[in-house]
């Protein structure tokens, strides 16, 4: 087992041993699953909507280069400056340059997973620029010096008591208040001033519309609207895959995303950003920038099956319904995107050397694929990425393909193949097991036996019994 995989197993064990993590996630995921189910009472309507959502995303990806060019041209017409970044480093430098041009000292941020991918806060901090998270959940994890454990609800791993303790410890003049509403009020009061003091606002983007050059941003707290309107400069960061062709394409996605994510019909705020403040307008930023990050996405896009990863609209339904995520939580994955979508996306971005073991952390139960609003066949892709991780052709399209292949495991499967491809060998093996009456609880069986009785081979195999019965041919 390589070092990253070993560390992954250590984090899993730590999470499983933490009763607080277990309880917080179980409760939260149960709630989110119920809320989503209540939003889609009609299965026929749900499937129709999923078809629409999937079609919109597939259509966009099928013409991605053209749509990105159209998006750039339309944005330019609207006065939005478009930047392209192939790597995270390049993306960070672009944001830093914009900040420096405006002598920015402080940046206020709306929620953005791409900025997490960039580790933007840390990067800006190294250059003396304070980046403050304005989404309540993000604010909490930033205050705690942690990373988000969920892509929609970043602080879902904490309960009210833990947040109350955090606020009392980190915020000057704030005592211990174990009341969610009061805690929210405290954060709002602190953040309110920061919005107006900030030199630059950084936000994410849910959908970038090529037809109109507008950026759609949905949120519940108003922090997105303030981030994108109060500071003089707004920088929207997003992945190149977030483009859709037409404004009407946004309709099914807007209908699917909040319902799949948090079980809301619609988010409190739906922002349509179509450029900087125009002459005669009283508010809005003077400059709007759109930063389009690649970070491995072009490579993912090149493979027709793997491309489906990019259909994702980051709703989090897959992790909310994942029995593995519900037990180990987001941090155990050790990646920006956790859960099923993370298991298929992260190996393609970071490479199989680093996180090739992620797709293995699934029982392939299919709950993720069943709820995905844009029909990403996540279980199928988990299997595909397991294959790429142990590829021995040297031609894997995935970064670091084959890195997880070990001599021992490959030899085991070769041996398995030899036995099961030969009826005579197979019968010999099963009859030997039958005659021995069981297998010693060694190796993998030891893990099994720690919480289960080890199954005993039957006295006679089905082969033998049906031979006697006269069914064999």
């Amino acid at each position, binding site marked *: 087992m390589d070092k990253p995989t070993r560390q992954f197993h250590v984090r899993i064990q730590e999470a499983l041993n933490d009763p607080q993590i277990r309880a917080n996630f179980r409760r939260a995921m149960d709630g989110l699953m119920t809320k989503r189910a209540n939003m889609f009472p009609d299965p026929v309507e749900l499937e129709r909507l999923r078809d629409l959502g999937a079609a919109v995303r597939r259509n966009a990806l099928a013409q991605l280069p053209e749509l990105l060019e159209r998006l750039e041209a339309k944005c330019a017409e609207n006065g939005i400056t478009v930047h392209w970044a192939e790597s995270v480093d390049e993306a960070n430098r672009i944001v830093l340059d914009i900040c420096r041009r405006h002598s920015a000292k402080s940046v206020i941020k709306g929620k953005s997973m791409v900025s997490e991918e960039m580790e933007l806060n840390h990067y800006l901090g190294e250059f003396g620029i304070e980046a403050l998270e304005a989404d309540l959940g993000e604010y909490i994890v930033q205050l705690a010096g942690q990373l988000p454990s969920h892509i929609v609800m970043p602080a879902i791993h904490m309960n009210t008591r833990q947040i109350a303790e955090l606020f009392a410890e980190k915020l000057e003049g704030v005592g211990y208040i174990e009341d969610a509403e009061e805690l929210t009020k405290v954060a709002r009061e602190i953040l309110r001033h920061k919005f107006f003091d900030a030199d630059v606002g950084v936000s994410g983007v849910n959908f970038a519309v090529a037809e109109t050059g507008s950026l759609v941003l949905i949120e519940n707290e108003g922090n997105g609207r303030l981030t994108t309107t109060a500071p003089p400069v707004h920088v929207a960061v997003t992945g190149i895959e977030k483009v859709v062709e037409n404004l009407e394409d946004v309709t099914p996605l807007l209908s699917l995303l909040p319902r799949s994510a948090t079980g809301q019909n619609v988010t409190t705020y739906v922002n349509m950003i179509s450029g900087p403040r125009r002459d005669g307008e009283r508010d809005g930023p003077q400059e709007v920038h759109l930063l389009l990050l690649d970070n491995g996405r072009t490579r993912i896009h090149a493979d027709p099956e793997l491309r489906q990863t990019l259909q994702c609209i980051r709703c989090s339904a897959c992790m909310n319904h994942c029995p593995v995520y519900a037990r180990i939580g987001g941090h155990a994955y050790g990646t920006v995107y956790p859960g099923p979508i993370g298991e298929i996306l992260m190996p393609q971005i970071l490479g199989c050397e680093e996180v090739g073991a992620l797709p293995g952390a699934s*029982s392939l139960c299919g709950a993720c694929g069943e709820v995905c609003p844009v029909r990403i066949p996540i279980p199928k892709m988990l299997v595909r990425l397991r294959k790429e991780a142990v590829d021995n052709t040297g031609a894997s399209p995935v970064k670091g393909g084959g890195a997880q292949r070990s001599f021992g495991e490959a030899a085991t499967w070769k041996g*398995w193949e030899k036995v099961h491809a030969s009826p005579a060998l197979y019968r010999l093996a099963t009859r030997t097991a039958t005659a021995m009456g069981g297998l010693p609880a060694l190796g993998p069986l030891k893990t*099994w036996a720690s919480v289960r009785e080890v199954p005993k081979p*039957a006295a006679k195999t089905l082969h033998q019994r049906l031979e006697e019965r006269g069914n064999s041919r």
Partner: protein
Amino acid sequence: MEAEHAYPGQRPRQVYLFGTCLVDLFFPEAGVDTVSLLEREGVKVIYPKDQTCCGQPAYNSGYHDEARIVARQQVRLFPGDAPVVVPSGSCASMMKHHYLDLFRGEPDFADVEALSRRVYELTEFLVRVLNVRLNDLGAPEKVAIHTACHARREMGVAGDADALVDQLANVERVGFTRQTECCGFGGTFAVKHGPISAAMVSEKVDCIEAAAPDRLVGGDCGCLMNIGGHMRHRGSPVKVQHIASLLWERTDG
């Protein structure tokens, strides 16, 4: 994945049984009871003796060349038109759905496709093809059903096991909390991620025990080995069985 299932208009006179490797070695009773149920319906059951494993363990582990070699060995054992009945939703789905991916572009793809169309999960076959009518002769009891994830989400046959148990007049079918959640088996997942799998199965058994059934049945021996193994480990009173055994035992006059 939720491929359309075509059902033969006429009641087939004979079927093949693909028994699965787990049933062969650990749960032959489930296989024999499957044969008994089918034969009672007047269907001749042929068991090709060279069958081994559908190939799913290697396939799900990413070793597709090895899986294909083993799968190919099975494909040639089921010539003609007879349906192939599988007492496992997971193995049935492997042959019905995943074989198509595994053999895409291979010279024998057409054979594989023809086979995949004839593959049925047992409860699906009993309900939708044979339209069985069960006469319950057993004493009153409470039965809970664990439907395997692949039977539910890939084969789409979760309702068929329910329908069969509901035909048993003296059986009360009991539901339990988080019934549709995975039991934590997942093939090699149970050993590769033993601790997560253990957490999943112990919570699954908590939920089952809270409903206090006399028996838990399912259509997949992988799940049953996992759930039943954990139940016996913790000394649970619930009896665990393949659904074929429940159906045969209670209706065999």
